[in-house]
């Protein structure tokens, strides 16, 4: 960071492919900016549908992040700190949603939490509760897709945290819960925050699992990405571009906010 490297010349063998890589990742966003209907921007951004979708997206992503924090931090702790048999398998399983196509995730969620699903069927028959097509389903889909980001970040932080502090706390008579709460958690807080931000951003962008499991209805389940998808299919590319830019703006702001506290260093 404050280290200054004297030799700043970058070898071309690295610079050329790096430039290509940056181009592939950054140009598409630049394309959106160039094509954006700057004149209609404010009218689109303040239209009822967009505002409703934005509000719904912010609320669901925030609730999903809350759920992911409550459930995901303990999962990360379990993976990093206990000698569970089959821990490697569990780690593989809980991180599958990172690489699973979200649409497939949505189908799987329907199989389990749908009205005729394994758990959903029981919920419906017993309590008359049906999850699909509700805002709760949006949150569940987002948790499914985004929580692994949090788990990975927090597990990384836990692994790099010095376990000897926990040993000391144990010799001082602390229960493992006290140790977790007063020693471990404060130590990995930066990792937890980084994970929560990533998780939030990912939940905000969630599309496939949401559309499959929660459907798409304005005000209830149609979040910003779904609104964008509808706009694309309806040929409303202006709206689609504006919505995309809105999401990119939110994501970039948040990722840059993370700065050096990024997953990689957590």
């Amino acid at each position: 960071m404050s280290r200054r490297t004297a030799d700043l010349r970058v070898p071309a063998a690295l610079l050329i492919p790096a430039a290509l890589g940056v181009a592939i990742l950054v140009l598409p966003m630049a394309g959106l900016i160039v094509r954006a209907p700057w004149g209609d921007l404010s009218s689109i951004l303040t239209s009822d549908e967009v505002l409703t979708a934005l509000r719904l997206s912010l609320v669901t992503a925030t609730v999903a992040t809350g759920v992911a924090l409550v459930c995901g931090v303990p999962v990360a702790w379990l993976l990093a700190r206990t000698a569970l048999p089959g821990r490697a398998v569990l780690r593989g399983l809980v991180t599958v949603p990172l690489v699973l196509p979200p649409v497939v995730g949505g189908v799987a969620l329907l199989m389990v939490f749908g009205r005729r699903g394994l758990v959903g069927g029981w919920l419906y028959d017993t309590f008359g509760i049906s999850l699909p097509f509700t805002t709760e389903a949006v949150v569940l889909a987002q948790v499914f897709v985004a929580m692994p980001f949090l788990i990975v970040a927090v597990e990384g932080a836990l692994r790099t945290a010095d376990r000897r502090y926990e040993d000391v706390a144990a010799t001082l008579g602390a229960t493992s819960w006290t140790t977790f709460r007063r020693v471990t958690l404060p130590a990995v807080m930066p990792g937890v925050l980084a994970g929560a931000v990533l998780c939030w951003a990912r939940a905000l962008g969630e599309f496939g699992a949401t559309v499959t499991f929660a459907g798409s209805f304005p005000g209830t389940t149609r979040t910003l990405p779904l609104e964008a998808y509808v706009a694309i299919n309806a040929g409303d590319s202006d709206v689609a571009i504006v919505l995309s830019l809105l999401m990119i703006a939110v994501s970039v702001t948040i990722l840059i906010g993370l700065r050096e506290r990024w997953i990689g260093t957590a």
Partner: protein
Amino acid sequence: GGDDGGDDTAAPAGTATTEPADDAPSGTVTVLAAASLTESFETLSDQLADQYPDLEIVYSFGPSSGLVEQVLAGAPADVLATADTKTMDEAVAGGVVDGEPSVFARNTLALAVPAGNPGGVTGLADLANPDLRIAICEPQVPCGGAAQRLLDAAGVTAAPDTLTTDVKEAASLVALGEADAALIYLTDAAAEGDAVETVDVPESDSVVNDYPVAVLTDAPNPDGAQAVLDAITGEPGQSILGEAGFLSP
């Protein structure tokens, strides 16, 4: 032949893999078709396989409006078949359609419910019941437009729980039992088989969608495209579509 797309990036799906015979069309024909045509068109290509052994038909099904967007963005396809004239008109306006589109089929809507009708749906009026789980197509896609006209005709204000981007999504929600009722094409309800029942809707005949088909300007395989178009508008297309429940144009 699955073309790896490496030898001709402009038209990977339509590259001719054999020299065309004098009369018989050959090579690959890429057809973009409305989701509601899925079953019928697949049956059609099975039957054409005998007639044109060198012709391979590749489909991409989806919401009509989305398909039009793809064509406008340069999708290398030969034939476009949509579920209403409005979406096809956009393609014509975009200058990607070669000649006049011709209507090859018409379709009506059905009120579909899961097998056993767990929601006890008896008519269109039930679509206003907020306690039922109802799926309707997005208004911008053909089946959604049709649904809107039907509901207007019946004077019903529906209370849908989800708006699907294509008709097949709505159909599969009913088939899975996740929706109590959906307005889908009669043909899609039939295609779902035993999983889906239909409830009689007297007003349904009043709303009919015309299905136009056209060869695309940039069709990589215009000869094959014309052959497929002819098969759709003539035989064996018309009888297959009729069996699936489509009305003749």
